[in-house]
């Protein structure tokens, strides 16, 4: 998994480690929040889909009743009123108004039907014959259209929610499967890099201190040998001791220089 996800291009420093840790924490919080949102939306969505299913069945029945009332009209009028109706339509009496409903931060529009007062294009239709049936038919159809509008709201909500849920789920998945692993990877990488540096450092220190010990031992041996030699020489030529002591001081001076460098 880690191979596919990769890691972010950062310098493995302690500062970026801190950043990454914060980021991981943020991602985890975001993940749980989004997950909850997605669950709330899905619940709503399931509810809506079930209602759509019901409403569509209901619509079938309602429209049938409405169509039947139109049959009553044609029976009573004894002719075709379609053309006249089409021509006399001018102003919509039946209109819809859109409202908003907030579901977990998603604004869902709902349609609300209302009738425009004072608009009546068909008041006199069927004056001589069948007017009462036409009146009844209008009421039946008005009720049918209300059902249709309700269904339209559900359907719009369905489409929007569908889209929103997809987006949210994509985000949830992205966080879960990409951002979190990648951040974790990065942290792991930074940690391992830092460990590596630590180890190198430790090794180097060990090396250095080893070398120092060796140098000290060598110097000690030298001094020891020199002293022996001096003692031997002093035993042989006591006048040369003065000169030998000067040389020894020089060696110590060099050692001090080295100390300063460490």
């Amino acid at each position, binding site marked *: 998994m880690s191979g596919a996800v990769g890691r972010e291009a950062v310098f493995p420093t302690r500062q970026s480690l801190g950043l990454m840790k914060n980021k991981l924490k943020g991602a985890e919080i975001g993940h749980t929040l989004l997950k909850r949102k997605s669950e709330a939306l899905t619940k709503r969505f399931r509810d809506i889909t079930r209602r759509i299913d019901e409403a569509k069945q209901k619509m079938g029945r309602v429209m049938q009743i409405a169509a039947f009332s139109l049959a009553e009209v044609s029976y009573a009028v004894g002719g075709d009123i379609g053309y006249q109706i089409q021509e006399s339509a001018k102003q919509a009496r039946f209109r819809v108004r859109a409202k908003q409903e907030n579901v977990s931060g998603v604004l869902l*529009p709902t349609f609300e039907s209302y009738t425009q007062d004072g608009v009546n294009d068909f008041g006199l239709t069927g004056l001589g014959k069948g007017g009462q049936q036409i009146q009844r038919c209008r009421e039946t159809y008005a009720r049918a259209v209300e059902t249709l509008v309700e269904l339209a709201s559900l359907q719009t909500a369905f489409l929007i929610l569908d889209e929103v849920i997809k987006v949210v789920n994509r985000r949830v998945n992205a966080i879960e499967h990409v951002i979190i692993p990648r951040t974790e990877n990065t942290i792991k990488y930074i940690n391992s890099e830092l460990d590596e540096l630590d180890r190198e450092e430790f090794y180097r220190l060990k090396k250095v201190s080893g070398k120092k010990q060796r140098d000290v031992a060598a110097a000690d041996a030298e001094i020891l040998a020199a002293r022996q030699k001096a003692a031997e020489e002093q035993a042989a030529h006591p006048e040369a001791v003065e000169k030998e002591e000067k040389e020894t001081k020089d060696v110590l001076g060099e050692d001090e220089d080295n100390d300063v460098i460490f």
Partner: protein
Amino acid sequence: MAASAATYKDRQFLAVIGDEDSVTGLLLAGIGHVTEPPESQRNFLVVDSKTETSEIERAFQNFTQERKDIAVLLINQHIAERIRHSVDTFTDPFPAVLEIPSKDHPYDPEKDSVLKRVRRLFGE
């Protein structure tokens, strides 16, 4: 994705594409609206056996894309069948496209674009 208010606050009419009886009935309910001249446009289209499919297509595009005052488009299912591709590919939330049964063609849930999606989501 949540639609901004501007996209639907002006939408207050219903439109219908249907056979004569459906249109007559819906007009009786009072949904008919003819916009002011000179460009008076009706919000309904009567389709009979002689109506060209291209004309239905044009009306569908007009109601769904061009006009911004339509909130719901009602279309008879058997007419939606004739332009099924357009109906299926139209997935915007506005206007809501609603397939309705007609007198001679009872409602068949199997063909409905939206119901198909509903069914698919439930994995049926």
